[in-house]
């Protein structure tokens, strides 16, 4: 997987950041490499994942969903049942344990949907760390429930009013804060984005999703579907099937026994500029927030605004591993519109009694396109990355139930 220089996935990745934070990235990389195989670190991590985050999360056979389509068997990986309601907590616990060992007393994070902010605020309460969360002003409005929860947990939520006032600008502000307070602050990035070693670290801590799936299935699934914002829940569930034991010693990425891996991006309202967040499907490679990957940009290299009904997918960049997986055709990337995501939100709620996050609803909505192609003896796993309570206001404003 690693070729070229440090932190690259094919041509993608790297560390395109100001010199000021390079030493902190090096320090973080050293700590990560030291502790990821450390017994004491792992037993602390695993205990918290089990007793605090509620892992392993169930792999649920969605009987009614399966009957509805009348084809392959559909299973849902229930990340929505994690403490704080999404997969984000997996990464936050891991990074907080690293921050503690680095002696950092303050944590900063960016958040879009508020799920990562909430998970960060939660681990900061748990480990008694000072916590500042950057959040775009628009996202503060559309995710007010999560803002309230973060404050309840003792975090300070800092509104970001620059640019598009969403996740991109919250990330930029968090990086500026980190540049300024680098000595005592650890930045918990919420997805597989940012400069090396972040994509590697976040995907490692999220790989627990896919590793559990491997243990929960009796045979290798035929399809795995996950939504892609920055790319962490998808990389997490794809992980063992891309970089796991059975492929680790192989240079052949097109292994036969791999499930068909499908990443779903936010198609927004149309494929016009500014109407979607389909970075891999419609973007071009470039540098944003420290790494070289696909992004939405104009011909002069200025970053364009993204749009998605779901705040967690509303980002003009994507993690470098996905750029690599796309170019190598290891993962297929598709888009789902705002409208179809709203349909899936309501559909899953009524059919299975599970209210999905609007992000995860994109993955559910793709079943409409996928299922007719599947056979009865095939299995499909959908990563249900989070629960939808946070989205009730958005949905209420968009839909008559």
């Amino acid at each position, binding site marked *: 997987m690693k070729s070229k220089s*440090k932190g690259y996935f094919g041509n993608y990745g790297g*560390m395109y950041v100001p010199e000021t934070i390079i*030493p902190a990235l090096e320090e973080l990389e050293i700590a990560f490499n030291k502790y990821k195989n450390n017994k004491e670190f792992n037993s602390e991590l695993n205990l918290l994942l089990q007793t605090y985050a509620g892992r392993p999360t169930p792999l649920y056979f969605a009987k009614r969903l399966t009957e509805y389509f009348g084809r392959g068997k559909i299973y849902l990986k229930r990340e929505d049942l994690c403490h704080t309601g999404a997969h984000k907590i997996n990464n936050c616990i891991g990074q907080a344990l690293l921050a503690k060992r680095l002696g950092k007393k303050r944590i900063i994070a960016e958040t879009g949907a508020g799920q990562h902010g909430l998970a960060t605020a939660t681990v900061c309460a748990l480990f008694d760390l000072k916590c500042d969360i950057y959040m775009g002003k628009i996202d503060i409005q559309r995710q007010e429930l999560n803002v309230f929860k973060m404050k309840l947990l003792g975090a300070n939520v800092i509104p970001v009013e620059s640019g598009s006032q969403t996740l991109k600008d919250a990330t930029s502000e968090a990086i*500026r804060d980190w540049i300024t307070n680098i000595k005592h602050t650890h930045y918990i990035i919420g997805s597989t984005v940012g400069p090396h070693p972040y994509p590697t670290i976040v995907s490692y801590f999220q790989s627990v999703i896919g590793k559990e799936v491997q243990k929960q299935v009796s045979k290798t699934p035929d399809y795995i579907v996950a939504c892609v914002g920055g790319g962490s829940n998808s990389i997490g569930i794809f992980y063992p099937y891309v970089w796991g034991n059975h492929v680790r010693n192989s240079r052949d990425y097109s292994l036969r026994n791999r499930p068909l891996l499908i990443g779903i991006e936010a198609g927004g309202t149309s494929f016009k500029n500014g109407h979607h967040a389909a970075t891999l499907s419609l973007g071009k490679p470039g540098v944003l927030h420290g790494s070289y990957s696909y992004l939405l940009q104009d011909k*002069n*290299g*200025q*970053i364009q605004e993204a749009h998605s009904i779901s705040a967690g997918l509303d980002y003009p960049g994507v993690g470098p591993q996905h750029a690599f997986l796309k170019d190598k055709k290891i993962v297929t990337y598709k888009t789902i519109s705002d409208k179809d995501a709203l349909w899936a939100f309501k559909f899953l709620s009524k059919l299975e009694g599970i209210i999905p996050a609007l992000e995860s609803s994109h993955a559910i909505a793709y079943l409409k396109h996928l299922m007719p192609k599947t056979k009865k003896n095939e299995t499909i796993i959908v990563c249900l990355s989070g629960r939808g309570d946070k989205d009730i206001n958005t949905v209420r404003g968009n839909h008559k139930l």
Partner: protein
Amino acid sequence: MNNKKSLLIPYITAGFPNKKLFVPILKTLSESADFIEVGVPYSDPLADGPTIQEASKIALENGVSLKWILETCHGIKTLHAKSLQQEIKPLILFSYFNPILQYGLEKLLRDLPKPLFYGLIIPDLPIEEAKKYLPLFKNYKLNLILLCAPTTNKIRLKQISHLSNGFIYLVSVTGVTGTRNNLSKELKNKIKELKSITKKPVVVGFGISDSKQASKVISYGADGVIVGSAIIKLLKENKNNPLSRLRVFMNSFRR
């Protein structure tokens, strides 16, 4: 900063406050500056504080692009009288990496008018990423000026000063650009450390807002200063007579 040998390097965002003033500002600055940093506006300037962020945004709204900057600078070289070309001090292009990538790095190095352009500063291209491009800069006889920060340790200081061309840019504060009231205590030691490692000129930037701070930095052993946000502020606050105010401000550094 009475030492005439010290380098005075102002920074401007190209096309701020408007496109029309770009060349007149370069001319005015050239009266007192040794080099001029020409900032390419960018939508997501990670290393910049609110002042330069805003200038960047306005310049983008004015339609400034790397292409426009190049065309205008070629105009200085060809259309205007020879005297104007001689009037303008060597320029240093300051740009985040993505606008350069999309233009094409090699194409840019080829297209930059020389010797009008002396080199480039790319704040989000640390040595890890810059290394592979150094031969290209050499080919086109342009300097890639690398940055050191207060957080840079001795080993890296050595690597950076070895690889940096023209001079070395020492960031004075742990933080983003913007004027500061006080210089950090560690700055003096950092300048000394760097000067003991390298013979290349060391210029200090980020947060230097007046001649008093500049003199202090020079007294610590630096070879020059870069003044950015203070100039942007001045241009923003003096819409009626920006050039004369700029002249007065720049001259204050030479007294």
